[in-house]
């Protein structure tokens, strides 16, 4: 992977977003809970948006893809165990699963960035990691609202 050129990086990143979109769309169809179905549908739509963004960068070399890391990283995904995928998932599990996936994406791009041979490629991969970090941050913010139910 270290020898990938910029176009290959974009292609791989786009492929990840397509896979994520298909994954979320698939589980949205099978989820038993209405809230979970809606969450996965929204996530599938988000991934499609990410794919379109990456395609714009891929096809327009005049665009400079520099994405800064979000100002905060709550590290909630890192502190949360990945839930098991099932049709009986609760809304919090759906968000937890998605934020774990974003955490894995961050780690994927950061790993590639560390082994990149040139600074242009490294910066591109760091930008992609930052983009995924932004997605993780957004999901972690949702998880705080949804992840700590109170039993009475």
């Amino acid at each position, binding site marked *: 992977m270290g020898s990938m050129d910029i176009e290959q990086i974009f292609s791989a990143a786009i492929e990840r977003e397509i896979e994520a979109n298909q994954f979320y769309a698939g589980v949205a169809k099978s989820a038993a*809970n*209405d*809230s*979970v179905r*809606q*969450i996965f549908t929204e996530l599938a739509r988000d991934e499609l948006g990410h794919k379109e963004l990456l395609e714009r960068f891929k096809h327009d070399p005049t665009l400079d893809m520099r994405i800064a890391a979000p100002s*905060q*990283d*709550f*590290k*909630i995904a*890192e*502190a949360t165990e990945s839930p098991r995928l099932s049709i009986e998932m*609760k*809304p*919090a599990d759906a*968000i937890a699963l998605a934020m774990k996936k974003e955490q894995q994406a961050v780690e994927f791009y950061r790993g590639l960035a560390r082994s990149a041979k040139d600074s242009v490629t490294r910066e591109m991969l760091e930008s992609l990691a930052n983009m995924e970090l932004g997605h993780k941050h957004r999901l972690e*913010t*949702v998880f*705080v*609202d*949804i*992840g*700590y*139910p*109170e*039993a*009475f």
Partner: protein
Amino acid sequence: MAGLAASFGSGAMTNSIAELQDAKVLFVIGSNTTEAHPVISYFMKRAVRKGAVLIVNDPRRIDLTRWATMHVQHNVGSDVAYINGLINEIFRNGWAREEFLATCTENPDEIRNAVKAYPVEKASKICGVPVDTMKKVARILGESESASVCYTLGITEHICGTDNVKALANLQMVLGNIGKYAAGLNPLRGQNNVQGACDMGALPNVFHTYQPVDNPAASAKMAKAWGVEKLPTKPGYKMPTMLRKARDGGTKILYCVGDNTVQTEPNMAHTIEELKALELLVVCDIFPNMTTEYAHVVFPDTSWGEEDGTFTNTERRVQRVRRALTPPGQARSHWWVMQELGTRLGRDLGFTSGRSIWEDMRATSTSLAGITWERIERQGLQWPCPTVEHPGTPTLHLSGKFTRGKGLFHALSWIPPAEAPDAEYPLVLSTGRRLWHYHSGTQTRNSVGLEAIFPEELMEISPSDAAAMGIRSGDMVKATSRRGAITVKAWVTDRSPAGVCWCAFHFYEACANVLTNSAFDSVTETAEYKACAIRIEKVSDGVPVAPSVSRQARP
């Protein structure tokens, strides 16, 4: 909490205290805020000074009505009918936030249909609020971009307390007022640390941070952390059941911490019989009180100024508390008492300080895991705060997501209080708290200054009822219910509407809970402290006082 948790998934204040000052509309119901939550009332008054509309909904002319744009005097125990009527009017006029209903709630058509049974004309007959007033309130709420609802025990201390809370949750969801700054649904929790006690698992069915004891995963996690093979997975009894079972041997030992049970539970005579039936009653408190009289063992506890630990206030904010005084005599921190008891029972609990207990909790916590004592050295943090990187959460549901996913509507029908006035007991008694005293008075009645300001209980009687019975302020009267009787000084005041009397439970000499009914909400088992039937008889004349004479302590 149960009603709110059923609707939202969380039972705590959705917003923060400071946000109240920025509210456009404040809808306060069942909360005598200036007396029971005086600090929070300052934020409400500040909102009014900044132009907010304050709607105070209370059968009594409480002090907060002096700042109110509107005072709505609904009948005691009519909340569900009143709120359903408002929601009906909001739907009828197209003021419901349809986009919020469609995207953030689970069953909006259910509430849309259910409130059709409560047109304002019908609701008005139940709640006693004029139709035009109900329409005006609905319009204010419906046309405002946001509104904050605050409530307290006037909502929850009814046999339908859970439904009352669900009705308010319905209202705020219909208006799309959840997940907004300076809006939301805000139960003003009692005392300084009721929220903290619940967070730490002082409930019969959950470990700390609301992890259910009957959830095998949660139970296994705690067992592993605490080094035991297994933990009980059956929820315990709520307090009324706990006490009731004392009489049939189902409860043998009661360990009572900082709760003057005799004076604070309804139907005092009944409570005393239940305590007498116990094999062992252990009471931990800071001064002797009505309950220590019946205890086999009393452990003297430290007071708040002698303690090192945390309090969690009503806005979910965990705050450090530091010892300012050395505990007198044999008084000990309550964790120390528990540790010593554990040791004598063959179990080292591992408690060495307030901080060690916090860390023990944090290790297996979820929503409090990010709150360390270092982080709250100067400023408290609001949960959820799941990691040390997280800044805490002043406002819940800002993402548009409820803790349970989507907000859940509940179709509700009004039911009357358990005990209605009749020919023998023609007046409604409602009860509560006064500014100058605190709960059963274990602390405040040992404070010379507070005892001097407000030294005795007063029975508040409306001018029309008092006139009909020939009673004047200062006369001694006997108040009698089906449970017992008290003799108390009368205060004739238009704070009480006709047909309604009111007194507090701070004074054991004339305690409201001699009279109150132990009928309770079937979900929470919270008793109906706010409504029972009594009769009043004059016992003796007081010193005649000219009507123009007033006293600061009796506004």
